[in-house]
């Protein structure tokens, strides 16, 4: 069975600095998708970034980028130039390809951003 592990329950960063959130996963599949979701206090689940396993290039969305290490089954999220609005819970999630399966979530990392 696939599992997703986030080993950092809480992280903190100062405004304008860079922080990296860790995620590892376990799967025997070769085709899959990985996601980072953000959950602010409003509870809404917001997609931050996604990575297709068949792509070697790391995904980037503005200040958010990932370090995808397929062999190591690692998928970390880097937030550059952190902003106060980045404070939230961040969840790593896995979904195998094709789209016949459900999203599996990690337990989350709470990110605090200090001015």
């Amino acid at each position, binding site marked *: 069975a696939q599992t*997703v592990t*986030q080993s950092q*329950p809480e992280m903190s960063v100062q405004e304008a600095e860079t922080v990296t959130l860790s995620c590892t996963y376990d799967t025997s599949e070769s085709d899959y*998708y990985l*996601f980072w979701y953000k959950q602010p206090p*409003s*509870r*809404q*689940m917001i*997609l931050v970034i*996604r990575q297709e396993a068949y792509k070697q290039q790391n995904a980037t969305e503005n200040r958010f980028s990932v370090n995808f290490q397929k062999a190591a089954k690692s998928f970390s999220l880097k937030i550059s130039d952190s902003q106060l609005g980045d404070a939230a819970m961040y*969840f790593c999630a896995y*979904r195998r*390809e*094709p*789209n*016949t399966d*459900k*999203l*599996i*979530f*990690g*337990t*989350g990392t709470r990110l605090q951003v200090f001015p």
Partner: protein
Amino acid sequence: NAGVTQTPKFRILKIGQSMTLQCTQDMNHNYMYWYRQDPGMGLKLIYYSVGAGITDKGEVPNGYNVSRSTTEDFPLRLELAAPSQTSVYFCASSPQWGRTEAFFGQGTRLTVV
């Protein structure tokens, strides 16, 4: 564009009561899901559906039932509510092909007392 709509946003139930959490999506997505999120935890899958008339159990289905009579709607039924069902419930949907991320509703905070 409404996306995924859940009702109600908050509810307090007494032990043994029943209720239905409503979920509807207007994106014509085949896949729909119900997750629960306990305090400080990630989301756990309760039930999911790959299309109208088809449902399947997730990780934590006990105490819940679902139905999927239309593509748009995927209600979650709680029978005989228990304190262990106090949680935040999220409905989500995703298309079968193309974009693969799930779109989430705003969540329902349920307290069983």
